[in-house]
């Protein structure tokens, strides 16, 4: 069991926020921002839609802890943490595929490495706390501009108590071929994690950001309420891939939003496997002509889980295009909901959107819902929506079993096939991890 070097007692008040800010040696403006956000948080209520949040008690969480001081090298990372990483295949992954790794434990980035050639090109890949101190001008220009504390209850909470996260800056014309990767994990129960990730890709730049979450130790309810803000400038591209596998006692309530300028491309690839309940709808604000937004989402809801996921595409300029592909699997008493918004503003003439959401239900007790919303304020747009719900067919299972597969292998293969259109878009090692996690779930061997 990890013994945190610094941990605040449970509960949330102005004093707690002051302590967080002081411990981080933050500038005054950030403390003010936090206190203001806390005021907004107090004025808001839990949403009366989405997942059941009645058991979530904000005063029963500790909002800040630092497990270890900052470490420079891999060899200094404690053994039990490494074991978790090993199971996830991170060290090899780092050697082979990755341009940089930053791993967040509880609330602070403890290990990060950035390859030399990226630094030379002017790329910044660091933790958000460092960015506040080291790049104040750049940081303040973008911070909380897309997801202000007023946006929703969890964004307000995040703004008040945030800690850690990644900061990525890709200069004009710089194209990063290898994915930037960050793994997050909570391994102390009852500790909320409230990171902020801020990504800026300048004109003509390109990057792929990857994050994965896993929570190896389970205790009482935990909360993960992150904010992700992405700015994709003219003709730039960003792909943001998430594999979410929080333990089944974590509320995962995350706000992700991207601003996409002229001819820029933003892609959210979102895999939700874990957590008790997730509410997450990555958004693209298509503000520039011919901007393109895309969300590919896979969610798996096992017994006791509710995955309320989807996407938002807001077309605010001419000839913008978007595509949402969502696949959900519900097993046992699990519940998956697709919640999506496609909106065409008055300036969006000549734009088009395509939505496809498919649900696979494995048992009679599993549940799937679809809540698509379309708002159109202009003519001359194209909007296509497809939705399917299917059950695991006995005929298909029989076919596979007649070729020698056992029932759980056959079910696993059908589920893999169902989500394969999204898996194909995920880098191989993430896709195989996601597939492995899903197969473990199909075998019922993980909680």
């Amino acid at each position, binding site marked *: 069991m990890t013994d945190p070097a610094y941990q605040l007692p449970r509960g949330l008040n102005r004093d707690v926020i002051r302590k967080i800010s002081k411990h981080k040696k933050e500038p005054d403006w950030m403390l003010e921002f936090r206190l203001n956000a806390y005021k907004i948080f107090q004025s808001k209520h839990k949403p009366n839609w989405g997942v059941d949040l009645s058991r979530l008690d904000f005063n029963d969480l500790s909002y800040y802890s630092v497990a270890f001081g900052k470490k420079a090298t891999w060899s200094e990372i404690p053994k039990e943490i490494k074991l978790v990483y090993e199971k996830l295949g991170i060290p090899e992954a780092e050697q082979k595929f990755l341009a940089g790794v930053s791993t967040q434990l509880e609330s602070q980035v403890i290990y990060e490495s950035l390859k030399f050639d990226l630094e030379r090109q002017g790329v910044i890949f660091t933790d958000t706390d460092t960015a506040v101190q080291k790049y104040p001008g750049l940081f303040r220009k973008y911070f909380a501009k897309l997801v202000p504390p007023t946006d929703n209850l969890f964004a307000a909470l995040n703004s008040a108590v945030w800690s850690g996260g990644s900061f990525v800056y890709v200069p004009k014309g710089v194209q990063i071929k290898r994915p930037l990767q960050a793994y997050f994990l909570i391994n102390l129960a009852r500790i909320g994690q409230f990171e902020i990730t801020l990504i800026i890709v300048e004109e003509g730049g390109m990057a792929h950001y990857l994050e994965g979450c896993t929570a190896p130790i389970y205790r009482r309810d935990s909360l993960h309420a992150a904010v992700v803000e992405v700015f994709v400038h003219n003709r730039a591209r960003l792909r943001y891939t998430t594999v979410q596998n929080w333990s089944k006692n974590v509320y995962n309530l995350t706000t992700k939003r991207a601003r996409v300028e002229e001819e820029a491309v933003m892609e959210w690839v979102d895999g939700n496997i874990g957590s008790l309940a997730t509410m997450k709808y990555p958004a693209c604000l298509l503000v520039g002509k011919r901007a393109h937004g895309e969300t590919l989402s896979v969610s798996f809801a096992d017994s006791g889980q509710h995955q309320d996921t989807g996407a938002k595409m807001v077309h605010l300029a001419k000839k913008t295009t978007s595509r949402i592909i969502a696949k959900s699997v519900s097993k046992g008493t699990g519940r998956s909901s697709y919640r999506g918004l496609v909106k065409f503003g008055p300036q969006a003439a000549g734009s088009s959107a395509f939505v496809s959401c498919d649900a696979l239900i494995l048992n009679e007790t599993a549940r799937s819902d679809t809540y698509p919303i379309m708002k159109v304020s202009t003519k001359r747009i194209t909007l296509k929506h497809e939705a399917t719900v299917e059950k695991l067919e*006995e005929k*298909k299972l*029989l076919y596979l*079993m*007649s*070729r020698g*597969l056992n029932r759980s292998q056959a079910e696993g293969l059908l589920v*893999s*096939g169902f989500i394969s259109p999204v898996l194909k878009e995920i880098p191989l090692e993430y896709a195989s991890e996601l597939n492995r996690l899903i197969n473990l779930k199909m075998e019922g061997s993980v909680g």
Partner: protein
Amino acid sequence: MLKLDNLTVKAKTKLILENLNLSFKAGRTYVIMGPNGSGKSTLAKSIIADPEYEYRGKIYFKAKDITNLSTEDRAKLGLFVSFQNPVELSGISLFDLMKLTLKRKVRILEIKRQIDELAKQIDLNPEVIKSSLNQSVSGGEAKKLEVIQACLLNPEVIVFDEIDTGLDVDALGQIANLIKRRFQKPDKTLIIITHNSRILNHLRPDEVLIMKNGQVVNQGGPNLVKQIDRYGFKGWNLKAKLSKLHF
């Protein structure tokens, strides 16, 4: 090799097969013919324990009682039954399925090599192999995919249910030749369910079984096929007339 002992098969309340007693030997090829609804496909499905039916009686494989064995256990023992209408498996390729089925037995690269080789032999488009199994394929391609699976799994009892339906002359010849090479062997039992004697020009059967109303009404040599081609199943008393040909 395979023995059905007093096998009775019901679907809900409907009796489909009644007190079947059949014995299939190694090294022999059997043909099962009969009018639509005579119970041929149900017989095939009962060999792989399709849970859609209710069974009474016993099934033996190499003298071992397999009556209570599951579908996958029977497949693992060496029983293969092709599907008349193979199910569409979206996102799963032939390779994905075979990789999972044969894992720990055959190396992955070897599976791939064998698939490519077999596809070449029966002139199956490589694109069909890479894409979702049985999805948007022609009738002929679906049958070829079944035969390739049978070859890879290398079973001892092979039941092809209407594997020749909807095939053009060339495809029929290719498939039949492959079946002949792979499954007409001393250690294998080949059972062909068909409506059409065309395939039997390539695969000469040792024994012909005629089914009607859930029973085997006659059993005999290849000459039976000629009689059926001439007279059909209707309009004459099979049992009485064919019994003269029985040997």
